[in-house]
Every structure is written in structure tokens, then in C-alpha cells.
């Protein structure tokens, strides 16, 4: 591990002001990093992938609104420092928005969920093995312009949606899919004050700059996620398909929510995980379901539409069929839910 400056922030504004200026947000070359649970950051520092000069510990802010879950008739508000485990176990979230609780409960392990924060979760880095091992010289995300070893390497876990010829790394998390399916907002605090954007606008597809992962401004900090109640929240679920029974990233996953009346879909929300470079909203698939009677054929058509633009490599071609089946199964199960 390289030497770095460690600062413990006691207020959000102090944290933001302490962040080294001129830096590039949470990306690889950023000279500054916020430290929440550290389950991703510290890992990546130990293996020399992230090399911040300045680490700003924000855990002391957990006693501020950043550490709080609040629910009322207007909104569900999740502070950025809320632990995954606490949100996953929250009775009201389980009752009112099962997809949120499930996406968290099916992620990582209990120990990690006890440590890890929601903000850190959404910003976690890809598990692409070539990104995580600095002995590989080719990785555009880690060393812009160096190439992409995954293209002709071992790519079973890699993405089939949202890829570019520069990077096919999968966005590994689960929670962000639930957030984007529900049109959640993320609240940010930066050097120039606060703003809120849609979570769906937070991550960037790799394009020709895979090193730029989000739309955050340098030093901008996530303070909360906000979800407005909607009729499809109760009838929602997260289906995660993986090799093991637990403790594994998704091969394919689907966050789905549905407003169903007398068998007719008034609204459907779909986000896909394990198959895309960013948390992936499948709007074309949603449109095929909307205002239709729910049927197996429609679910299949939606699944086909969701993967219409898929591009596969040598070892991940199966993800198209698996992704479709996962989505179809999730839709079928959510339609059958008592809500």
C-alpha cells in the first residue's frame, strides 16, 4: 500500500472542502477517495488498483441524516451511510418496497452487508479480473488507452448490454438496479452546493472513456437516495441468478415492479443486472408490457426486447438466453405476487 493522507470528516461540508481539488471524482486516477465501509475501496488499494493520495473517512457522518432511513407518505429516504444490512432488514422497506430489501439481502455476505454503505454500494467498481489485477497491462478502465484484455480473454462474467469496443466490464452491484427501476433520485453535495439527479443518470456507459464511471463532479458526495411512493412498489421483486446459493455476484438479475389491475399491466418497471456495463433500465421491454394483459407471451416478448441490442463474446453468449429467462421468470413471479 502506498502512503496516503487520512482525514476524518466531521461534517459533509468539511468532507467536500477537504477533497483534493482538480480531481476526477471516484475514477481510477482520482487523487481523493471517500471512505465509507471500505469493503471496496480498501480492497482496491491493497491490490494497487486505486492509489488515492488523500482518503477522507466519512463514517463519522453516520450520526447526521447520512446515516438514517426515513419513511413517510411522501418519500422513502435512505442516507448514503446506511448499512446495507440495516436497509435489508428494515420492516417497512420489506413491506412497502420488497425489491429494495431483496436486492440488498441477496448481495455480498452478512458480514459485508454489516460494514458496507448504500452510497459505497452504488459506486462499487467492476469485478472484471483484468481490472483488479495490475499485472495485466491491458485495461482501458484502469489505464486509459492500454486496450482491453477481456475482449479476447476469459469473459464469462462480462456484460452483453451497453458495451463498447473499449470495455465490456459488468456493473456488479444489485441495489442500483432496484433504485433505477423505481426512478429513485440521488442527492449530492459538492463544492458548489447540493443537487439531485436520477440514479439512472449516475453511471456512464464505457463508450470510449471506460475510465470515467459516473457523472459525479470531482469531490461530489452522495448524501441520500430518495424514492417517491408509486403504485408498483409493493408488487416488486429482485431475482438474482448465480452459480452458488449465496455470496456471489449475479450472472443475470432482474429488478421488476408492476402495477397490475385485473390482469392488465398499468405500469411495469424493469432493470437488469449482471448483464450490462451499468445498472440497466429496460424501457423497451417495459413499453411492451404497459397497458397489455399480462401473459407469458408478453413476458417473453419483453424479455426478447430487453436483449435485442446484446453483443456477446466467447464465454458470455449464454447471458443473453439466461438474461431473458431471468427476466421472464421475474415478471411471471411478480405478476403472481399478492400485493
Amino acid at each position, binding site marked *: *500500500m502506498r502512503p496516503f493522507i487520512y482525514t476524518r470528516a466531521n461534517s459533509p461540508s468539511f468532507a467536500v472542502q477537504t477533497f483534493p481539488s482538480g480531481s476526477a471524482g471516484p475514477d481510477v486516477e482520482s487523487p481523493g477517495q471517500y471512505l465509507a465501509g471500505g469493503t471496496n475501496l480498501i480492497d482496491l488499494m491493497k491490490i494497487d488498483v486505486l492509489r488515492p493520495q488523500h482518503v477522507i473517512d466519512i463514517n463519522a457522518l453516520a450520526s447526521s441524516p447520512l446515516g438514517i432511513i426515513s419513511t413517510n407518505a411522501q418519500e422513502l429516504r435512505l442516507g448514503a451511510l446506511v448499512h446495507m444490512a440495516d436497509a435489508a432488514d428494515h420492516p417497512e422497506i420489506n413491506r412497502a418496497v420488497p425489491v429494495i430489501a431483496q436486492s440488498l439481502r441477496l448481495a455480498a455476505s452478512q458480514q459485508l452487508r454489516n460494514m458496507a454503505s448504500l452510497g459505497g454500494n452504488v459506486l462499487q467498481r467492476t469485478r472484471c479480473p483484468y481490472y483488479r489485477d495490475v499485472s495485466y497491462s491491458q485495461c482501458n478502465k484502469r489505464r486509459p488507452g492500454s486496450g482491453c484484455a477481456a475482449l479476447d*480473454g476469459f469473459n464469462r462474467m462480462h456484460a452483453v448490454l451497453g458495451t463498447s469496443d473499449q470495455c465490456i466490464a459488468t456493473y456488479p452491484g444489485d441495489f442500483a438496479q432496484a433504485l433505477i427501476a423505481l426512478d429513485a433520485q440521488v442527492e449530492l453535495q459538492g463544492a458548489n452546493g447540493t443537487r439531485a439527479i436520477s440514479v439512472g443518470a449516475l453511471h456512464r456507459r464505457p463508450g470510449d472513456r471506460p475510465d470515467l464511471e459516473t457523472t459525479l463532479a470531482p469531490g461530489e458526495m452522495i448524501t441520500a437516495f430518495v424514492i417517491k411512493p408509486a403504485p408498483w412498489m409493493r408488487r416488486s421483486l429482485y431475482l438474482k441468478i448465480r452459480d452458488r446459493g449465496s455470496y456471489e455476484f449475479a450472472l443475470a438479475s432482474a429488478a421488476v415492479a408492476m402495477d397490475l389491475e385485473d390482469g392488465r399491466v398499468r405500469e411495469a418497471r424493469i432493470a437488469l443486472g449482471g448483464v450490462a456495463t451499468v445498472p440497466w433500465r429496460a424501457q423497451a421491454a417495459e413499453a411492451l408490457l404497459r397497458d397489455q394483459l399480462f401473459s407469458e407471451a408478453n413476458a417473453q416478448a419483453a424479455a426478447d426486447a430487453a436483449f435485442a441490442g446484446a453483443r456477446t463474446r*466467447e464465454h458470455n453468449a449464454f447471458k443473453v438466453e439466461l438474461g431473458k429467462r431471468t427476466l421472464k421468470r421475474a415478471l411471471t413471479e411478480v405478476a403472481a405476487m399478492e400485493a
Partner: protein
Amino acid sequence: MSAAAPQPLANMGAPEPRMDGRAKVTGEARYPSDMPVSNPAFAFLVTSAIAKGRINAIDQMRARAVPGVLDIFTHENTGDLKEIKFASGGAGASTSIQQLGPEVFHDGQIIAMVVADTFEAAREAAYALKVDYAEAPAAPSFDSPGVETEDVTQLHDSAKDIPSVGDVEAALAGADVVVDAQYGTPTQHHNPIELFTTTCVWNGDRLTVHEPSQFMYGLKNNVARKLDVGPEQVRTISHFVGGAFGSKAQLTPRTGLVAFAARKLHRPVKLVATRDQGFTIATYRAETRHRIRLGARRDGKLVGYEHEGFEITSRPDKYFVAGVEDAARLYAYGAVKTKVNIVHADRNTPGFMRSPPVVPYIYAIETAMDELAAKLGMDPVEFRRVNDTTTDPISGKPYSSRSLMQCYDQAAAAFRWMARDPHPGSMRDGDWLIGWGCATAVYPTHFGSATARVRLLANGDVRVQTAAHDLGTGAYTVIGQMAAERLGVPFSAVKTELGDSELPPASVAGGSNTTASCCSAVMKACHAIRAKLFHAAATANEGPLAGQQISGLTLRDGKVAAEGAEEPLAETFKRLGVGAIEEYAESAPPGAPADAIASLYAGKPTLSGGAHGKKLMYAFGAEFVEVRVHKDTCEIRVPRAVGAFAGGRIMNTRTAHSQLMGGMIWGISSALHEATEIDPVRARYVNDNLADYLVPVNADVQAVDVILVPEVDPDVNPAGVKGLGELGNVGTAAAVSNAVYHATGRRIRQLPIRLEKLL
């Protein structure tokens, strides 16, 4: 008594809790890297980022500038280290690729080691080392251009008599039903939770090595050779081993290097290699391929079996496992023809991994057996019954004991196999397809050279010493149990000392021989103690036992006893005029060379058993597995597994149960989860960490039932023990694969069975 500590049946010892259990769960147990040494320096390895080529230059500027760095070792300053020969036993090095360069033979070859005042500084400097390579195209595995194939019978004496009998072509031509299929198994790594560590301390010209090891005397002698010092100058210590599974049996390149650095720096040096480095600085289970032709008559009688195996190895080393030797003895096959080839690729040298020869080969034959049973329309258990044998189909020699069908019958009953609908895809639970499959487990019974020292005090306290190894298996406990039983004292009066080359040597902890070999040596030492006590008691002028027949005496409850008469041990010791009796015993398998024990001291074990003696010596088991496959998304889960095993005398039902259960879990893992992925272009291991190299988590392991089937076998060794450590994980992969076939009608012939193969 709990499921974890089954009630002992005939010929089974008490489920004594592990002697070292408390120390382990409280963290008191000191593993080699925990051993306190004064003022250690810390080492960090640098491994190659290419699989083949040459190091042009190593730029050390930035690395040397890291504060706290003491030295950097590369091929340019370690030339004094001797090359020692690769040997495929416990007797040599794990690989002949020992130099740090400039030639690079495989991914992750050690090319440098940084030593610094702290681990963090060593690691930072290691990352700062700039290596300039001339990379050459590498051939990672089967089908890669440039690999070279060799027939093992041309290579090695031990492979000359690959099993063969009768005319297979004619037999298969005359068979009513034939299966002709190809199977494959992947690269797998042991991944013991305890990493590969080495700590070296020089005291003058004497070296102490703290390193987790499966062979204290092998390590001692081979390190001495590597450093060109006398073996008497080297002591190896490894009281506990945090899992090994074959990966810690031989000398790997790191040990000499750490010792070399410690000598040069006049300071103890401690190395804890990282998890990913563990994939390339030690050994692994090589990927294999198999072609099997198996034929039977309509009534189910086998008539012919042909098995050709292919195994990956490194460029220079001729490592192979050739499990046809055991597979060809499993049933009354009729004619048999086998062949084994090794395929040299640009890889590190493979090595033993739990049940090395049988795991891939038995997976292949046991899947073929299931395929043939299905073709015949026969129940797989009945098919095995029809072809059960009590003699070797190759040589005609008898089995010393063989309880295969007893295992099948007990496991089948517990599993409720009779409720199985034989038609694939016929059993369902909602959206889940259910499949039931079974397979045979088999492991050769090994008996190795070993020595032990046993001391009995007048107060009944016992100390047992042998440089054996407890890999977490329970060796401390079962070796102590043997002494307690022979000396008639409670188990709590016995202390076992293992894992130190200052103790009398034991064989390599390989081939599941430890319990058989060490308990036999301990028995012999105890018998010498008994003889002294009996002689003193019986030839005394007075006392309750005076004049008794020695053959009628025994030791029990801290007393020397005969029918209706006894005296406390303390009395007998008084007669002898001593406070302690200490006996050293040597035990070697029948047919061992006269210098077997001298060789053991020199680091060369002698093992017998399996197909090699006058009788065939094998332990058997039968395993049944239920799988559930989701009808759409095809995840595969294993809700229950039942195994029944017979292993001669069971020293301790708790430790036996634990070994067998752990083995079955590993078998499930090798069927569904484990595979080291190799980058097809760069010939490098990709998933070299425990997040991406999948092993089962608790959610994957549900009901796993182990049945111990009573068996008595006085032929295998004096202790009557068959090794169990490597039995449980044999056959499981076939049972899972057969169950997947039963669930889905799909026969997957390449492990692991991942869901994409069923979509």
C-alpha cells in the same frame, strides 16, 4: 450423541473430541506464520506477469527507494541456490522450475522477492518493481498449438504396467450395449485457508523453518539440499496446518529463497504469500480428458472397458496421476485396456490434490457406468451389484476386504432410493426438476513407513511423539487414542506431539496413510512398553500377578490386569525400579526395502497398498445425491446427499465423519463450482481469488449424511485401518452429474456443470 459424533458400531473407536480443538477455536493454536521470532523482516513475492518468455531487465530504482526496503532478490543474486530434482512423491521438489529467471516458464513464476522492515513496505516496493519482458506466445492447455503429448508408459517405471487384460476390441464388438464417450475435468486449486507461508531463522549455521507442511522430514532434507547444508543443520516445525490437501507435501521454490534471504540479511525473514500467488507458486489439480468405451451384455454383465486419459503438465516435469490403475479394478469388467498420456503446456507443474488419481478417473468411469445402466434400462445400483467383484479383474488377486455393496445398500435405504422414478425429467417439485444419482467412492489403502516414541509414566500419563502432521484431520487425536487404548489409560492422560523434525519421522501425509502408518508405529512402541510391564509383573516373586502367563495379561484402567487379578501401574513401575518407560518403534510396510526407515530419515517415504501387494487393498463407499434444477433459469442446487463408507477400523467416529462429510462437500464443489479459468490468449489463471474461484458456501450445503459401515480387515496393516481422508470426495462429482442427467435428461460430460450448459 450428535450426528457429528456418531455412535461407534463394531470395530469403531469413541468419538473423542479433537485434542487441539479448544486451542484452535480460541485462537491459541499457533500456525507456522504465528510463531514468534525476534525482529523479523518481511518478504513479498513478485511473480511473472507473462506465461512464457524472458526477463530483459528489472528496474529496481523506485522499489529500492521505498523506505524500509532491505534487499531485493532476483535471478541475478540468488545463483547459489541449488536446483533440486522434481519428484512426484514427497521426496523432492514440487517443480524443477526453480530459478527466478531470466527464463519464464509459466504464469506467476516467482521472479523476485522484496524484503523490508514491514510487510507494507515490501508490498509497496514489489508493486514498484518494473519488469521488462520479452513475451513469447504460450500454450495454456489441451488444443493449444504447441503442446506436446507423451504416452506415460514410455516415461516412467511406475507407469509401465498400466492395467490391461484380454482383448477389448473383440469384447466390445460382441457387447450388446456400448457407451463410447468423452469426459473432461477442469484445473482446480487446493486453496487451503492457511496461505503458503515460510519463516526462516538462522542461529549460526543452524536453520529453523516454520512452514505448514505435510512432510516434516521431506521439507527438512530438501531445504538442506537446496541450500547445500547438512540436514542435521535444519529443523522444520509445523504444529498445525490450516489445510493442505496435497499442496504442502513437497518443497516449493519459495522456501529456499526465504532461507537464503534470512542468511544474507542476518535476520529472520517471514513470507506470507498472497492468495493469488498461491495459484502459481505451489501445485494444482491438472485438467484431464478421458475417452471411455464400456460394453455390457443385455443382462448387465460388463464385457469390456477401455479408458484413455490425458493430463496436463508443465513443460519440463512429467507429473501424472494415471488413475486408471484404480479405475480398472473397480468392477468385473471382462477385458480391460488403458492408456494415459501427458500433455506438456506452458504451465506450472501440477501436483497432488486430495485423492489425486481417483478423482478425475473415477468421475469418468462412474459417469460412464451410469450412462450404460441407463442404456440397459437397469437400476444403477443393481448394475453395480451385477458387476461387483471380490478379485482384481486384472491380476486375479483377491481384495483384502470389499464392502461396496453393503455401502450401496445402506446408503440407498437412507436415501430412499426405492422411491426413484427412473425416467429422466419425471420427478418435479413445482418449477424445480428433481434428479437422483449415485456413484461409487474408492480409495487405495496406503501403509507407509513411520516411527514413534511413546513414554508412559508411573502415574499413567502418556506422551506420544512422531513427526506426523495434523492437517485439521484429527491426527493428534486418533494417534493419541491408539496409545490410550494400548496402554489402558484414559484418553485424557495422553498428550500427542507432532509436526517437528526433532521428533521421530513419519511418512508424508499423503495417500491417506497417516492414521494407518502412525497408529501402527505407536502400537508397536506400546507393545514394547506392555512387554516390559508384563514381564515385570509376571516374573515378580510376589504380587497379585506373580506367576501369571504373560499372554494372559493386559493393561486397563491404569492397571496391569489378568483374569481376576490386577495391580496398579505404579506397583509394576516400582518392581522395574523406573519412573518412566519410553519406547521408540519403527514400522515399515511389508515388502519395504531394508533401508526404508533410513530413507525416511533422509526424507524418502515408502508407501505400499492399493493394487501393489499380495491382496488388493481399497476402501469403498457409495454416494447418493439429489439435485434440483430450475426449469427455466437452470440453477443447480443440492438439497441432500447421503454417503456410506467402509474403512476397516474407524479410530474415531467423529473425526471419520468429519473427513467424509467434508469430502462429500468438496465433491459437490468439484461437480458444480470449482474450476480455475485460464486466459486462452495469455495462458494465465484469471479467477485466482476466493471470490471468483467458487467453492460452496453454507447455502450450497444442506443435508449431508454420512453412514459408517462396520468392516474388519486385519490384512491392511497392524492397526487394521484404511485411510478415509481421501475417500469422501471420490465419486461425488459423478453422483451429481448422474443426478443432473436424471433431472434433465441432459448428460454433461465436462465439469463443472454450470447452468449455461443446461440452458
